[in-house]
């Protein structure tokens, strides 16, 4: 299988301006050396708590925010090195569905205008009739009624809006879609519908997803691989099976233990791992392991030395000093 997206040592630092001349006095390292790749047709779940940099990573990959360092390879081509027109063509094949279906749709446009925007900008259809046919087809594919094409977005519910967002993302015939908390803003029954729609689309069109979420149940359902992010770094990576049944990093263990248990059996087996302490200040990172301050298994070496990224077998990677866990 070939890699559709490969991210190498991606960095995104936000400068903090201060002083009289607006000099950069400090940096927030939102994404600090993230590397991963996604095989064509697969779904990578990117999980982590709020503020760990997962959304920023998604935005930087799509070029919505400029990167500070690192490389992004799409279909084997380095986005920073190809020509402008080639870059535009590659960008067409990368789309995004945003978290908030209210702020991600222009309130002054009707559905037809919203969905056709990418078709028009990339000149994917020749005539107006073709554009309309395409819009209708996309609406049907996403579970919307083509009769609603000239309605405005405020006339739709959250779930329908998210369907519009998905139709818009599909309009440019992408291969790869970043789903940035795409279902977090919806209520649970709608979440299920949207997730099923996303899964159906992925299977029928052969899409590749980067699924950013903090909802582990959904990630487990939709992802083939999972990467766990903590404070701008990926601390664990493996297949969904590996991560959920055999987590190696204490942070992943803590995350998984926070998932609510429903059945009696689950509750009996549940061991809650409650983290102590707070996140370190993002512009004053500890020099050792970033998780050391909150880790129950902390040892002297954790505070001093940064752990290395090691394979724990079968492509299950983890960044922790403790070999067994």
């Amino acid at each position: 299988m070939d890699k559709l997206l490969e991210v190498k040592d991606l960095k995104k630092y936000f400068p903090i301006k201060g002083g009289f001349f607006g000099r950069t006095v400090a940096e927030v390292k939102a994404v600090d050396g993230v590397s991963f790749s996604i095989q064509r047709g697969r779904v990578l779940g990117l999980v982590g708590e709020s503020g760990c940099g997962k959304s920023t990573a998604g935005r930087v990959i799509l070029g919505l925010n400029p990167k500070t360092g690192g490389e992004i390879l799409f279909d084997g081509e380095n986005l920073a090195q190809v020509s402008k027109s080639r870059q535009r063509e590659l960008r067409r094949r990368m789309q995004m569905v945003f978290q908030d279906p209210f702020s991600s749709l222009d309130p002054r446009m009707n559905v037809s205008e919203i969905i056709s925007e990418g078709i028009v900008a990339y000149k994917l259809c020749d005539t107006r009739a073709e554009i309309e046919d395409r819009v209708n087809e996309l609406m049907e594919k996403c579970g919307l009624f083509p009769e609603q094409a000239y309605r405005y977005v405020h006339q739709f519910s959250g779930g329908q809006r998210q369907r519009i967002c998905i139709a818009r993302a599909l309009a440019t015939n992408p291969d790869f879609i970043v789903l940035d908390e795409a279902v977090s803003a919806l209520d649970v029954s709608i979440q299920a519908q949207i997730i099923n729609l996303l899964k159906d689309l992925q299977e029928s069109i052969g899409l590749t997803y980067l699924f950013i979420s903090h909802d582990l149940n959904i990630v487990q359902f939709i992802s083939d691989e999972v990467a766990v992010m903590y404070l701008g770094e990926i601390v664990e990576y493996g297949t969904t099976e590996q991560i959920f049944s055999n987590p190696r990093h204490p942070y992943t263990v803590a995350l998984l233990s926070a998932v609510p248990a429903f059945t009696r059996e689950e509750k009996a087996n549940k061991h809650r791992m409650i983290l102590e302490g707070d996140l370190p200040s993002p512009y004053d990172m500890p020099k050792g392991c970033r998780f050391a301050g909150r880790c129950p298994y902390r040892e002297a070496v954790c505070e001093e030395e940064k752990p290395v990224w090691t394979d724990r077998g079968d492509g299950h990677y983890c960044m922790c000093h403790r070999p067994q866990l």
Partner: protein
Amino acid sequence: MKHLQREHARRKRDMRREHARETWRLFCKNKAALFGLAILVIFVLVALFADLIVPYENAIAQDASVRLDGPSAAHLFGTDKYGRDVFAQIVHGSRRSLTLGIGTTLLSVVIGGLIGALCGFYGGKLDAIVMRICDIVMCIPALLFALAVVAALGADMINLIIAITIISVPSYIRVIRSVILSIVEQDYIYAARLCGTSNWKIILHHVLPNAMGPIIVQASMNVASMMLTAAGLSFIGMGVQQPTPEWGAMLNEARDSMLDGHLHLLLFPGVAIALSALSLNLVGDGLRDALDPRLKS
């Protein structure tokens, strides 16, 4: 297939027509806006057909025998200290006053809107430079600055419009820039970028339409102050020259006679300015609401 396409085109046309009708219906539902529109239409008609209503001579002909008369059948709004008919002055003054007020406002909105949009959208050096220029222009007293511009270019109607536009543009740039700064961070702007839409299209299709509300409010509020600035300039002889009738100039002239109890000289041009400003305000409010698709059912 052909038939389907025609059917689709028809439905789209119907939707457009429906949309326009809906906008108009919403506008009509706002009684205040309708009232404002009625007054505005009357003012514009008066300005257009001023010569048919009362001959221009009445506005400038001086008649010492009827100096400072109050309203009467012969002189509907009375006469000023030179014996000129105030009603004729109001009617003919509407041309200049409305052109000055509305013309400068439109010009400022277009110029300020474009510059403000570019500053807010691109930010960086362009933004910093334009903002400092605005600060400098706003530091200079408005009237003094306009005076300098008119003095340099010569006193006539066009130069007056240019001068007043220059002093009002910075405040528009600031208001519009701040509105746009909040819009460019919205996800739908990022989504438009992902759709491959070019920057200027994003500004025209997404940013400016969503900034329309505050722009309309700012513009309709400013018309009256534009008229008064023009009046101030006319007063010191740098604007519309006597005896050409103009509301602001009339108002300034009335100040001498006011203390002697000739309030009609103050009242009529004052009411004319207030009414035109009010009507524009009401229409502006109504338009803002009617154009917002979120408020439609």
